[in-house]
């Protein structure tokens, strides 16, 4: 902005003030403006300075309305193969300490039982689903839950299970086993679940 321009502007402003605009003499002119569909915010809109009259715009139905999608009831039926039941009489959940993905000794027998089943049934497909408690960010918790599922898979492969039989996924904090925001709920939610497909 150079000084001349500012001076000129000040002069313009003062002139505008001095000349004034008489009451009821500010016309609103209907210039047919360009379409303004949903969300547009500028094009076709003339910059209106103090001496301008108003321009007009047609506001039409937003083009970008939202088309609802309903995926309720889209649940895929699970494989009805008898292997999808997994090993009988074996726990299907292991729990973890806070901020940890180390498998606690008390769950080793559970992991061994699943390993035995998977080795005996080459066609069995296992999904290990990692979960966290609600503390922290959702995406970071998704990655933490993944680490838990991966830790259990590692426990299985160390016992000779073919890694191709096991997919590890995470639900992060999205599917708590127990509602609540105290340690009794948190400890039930920090887990990995065995889901046979």
């Amino acid at each position: 902005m150079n000084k001349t321009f500012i001076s000129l502007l000040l002069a313009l402003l003062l002139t505008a003030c001095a000349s004034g605009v008489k009451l009821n003499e500010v016309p609103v002119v209907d210039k047919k403006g360009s379409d303004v569909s949903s969300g547009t915010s500028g094009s076709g809109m003339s910059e209106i300075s103090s001496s301008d009259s108003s321009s007009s715009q047609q506001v039409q139905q937003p083009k970008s309305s939202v088309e609802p999608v309903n995926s309720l009831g889209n649940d895929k039926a699970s494989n009805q193969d008898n292997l999808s039941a997994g090993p009988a009489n074996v726990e299907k959940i292991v729990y973890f300490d806070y901020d940890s993905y180390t498998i606690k000794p008390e769950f080793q027998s559970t992991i061994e039982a699943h390993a035995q089943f998977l080795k005996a049934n080459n066609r069995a497909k296992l999904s290990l689903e990692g979960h966290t408690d609600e503390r922290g960010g959702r995406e970071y918790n998704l990655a933490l839950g993944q680490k838990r599922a991966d830790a259990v898979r590692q426990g299985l492969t160390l016992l000779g299970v073919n890694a191709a039989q096991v997919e590890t996924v995470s639900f992060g904090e999205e599917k708590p086993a127990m509602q609540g925001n105290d340690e009794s709920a948190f400890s039930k939610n920090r887990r990995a679940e065995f889901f046979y497909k």
Partner: protein
Amino acid sequence: MTRLVIALFALLGLCFGATHTAYAEFKVEISGVGITQIPIGISEFKGADIAPQKITQIVAADLERSGQFKTSNPGTSIDENTRPDFATLKSKNIDGLLTGSVNRLADGRYDIRYRLWDTVRNQDLGGQSFIAFTPDLRLVAHRIADQIYEKMTGDKGIFSTRITYITQHANRHMLWVSDADGENAQAALTSPEPIISPSWSPNGNELAYVSFEGRKPVVYIHDVSTGKRRVLANFRGSNSAPAWSPDGKSLAVTLTKEGGSQIFIIDAKGGDPRRITQSGGIDTEPVFTSDGSAIYFVSDRGGSPQIYRIPSFGGPVQRVTFNGTYNISPTLSPDGKWMAYISRAGNSFKLSLMDLVTDKVTTLTETTHDEKPSFAPNGKLILYATKVQGKEALMTTTLDGKISAKLSGQTSTIREPHWGPFLKP
């Protein structure tokens, strides 16, 4: 011309002390006091009663939420053709006056007109007329607020942009698109399983998100106007954290297909993902810089989750956050000067802001469960999820943390907000 008038207006017009008149019927929860708020009088538009939307109040609430205006009702209702009584207005210590009218046309549409006055210099700052059907009346109000904002601050207004967020009621998870004030919400997706991380495409037509409807996290791209959606990433393992490149042609995603959570780039039309990060631990929550040259992301490679930066074609990794042991969910301002993120302090998760030039960090909120920040497209506000009195809520804050506002809308669970772009014609 207009821009210069604004500059002078701002220079000449800084006076304070206007009292705030609450618009009782229109509930907006705003707290805090800004340092340099422009006092503006907003008189009820003449004939506004006939419109099914409270246009004047929507404009006032928009301007208040920006943190840059202090609105008051001068008590008179004059239309855009009437020159206001400047002497009286001066005694009320306001710098600007918004006047206008609403008329119903024979075909059922409404004609909404406004005019903005500089009450310091007794000057007409211009106005506009909008013709609209009932469903677009809120949009007209937001457009008027955008224009007032731009005339008086010189920055583009964001009130007519859209946001997205997720709600949950029992086993009903819903993805919503609403006005920037959280109102006028339309459901884009209803699912029996969780949905997280919705992210607007740069052109504002599509949302990428993570859905668990297939009993694992899968990334979808969803055209909001047609409802058509496609799977972007459904690889073995988990697929999450979609982030659009600025040109909209590709997305960064977190995949576990090669073991561990690692960041890949994938064409928006699908195809083979290209791995960007290489670590034995967690790399996730990617976000592109506005020039597309780099990606900020979260990694636990140093033992605790911290924010790092990597060239978007891969390369040397640079650590960005050093304070604290838990820094996640980075988001960048459009001008690249600021990074907002969530930082854990004790048991609190706080919205924090880093000046990327000086590395100075400020904490912006009083709340303790902040999540998922995103910048308004003009970079002047941050939208985030938090808890207020134990209930999930969406809030906006100014970058100095002085003015925060709770968005209206759903009551029980509301989360995962993302602020959409300016929409092009």
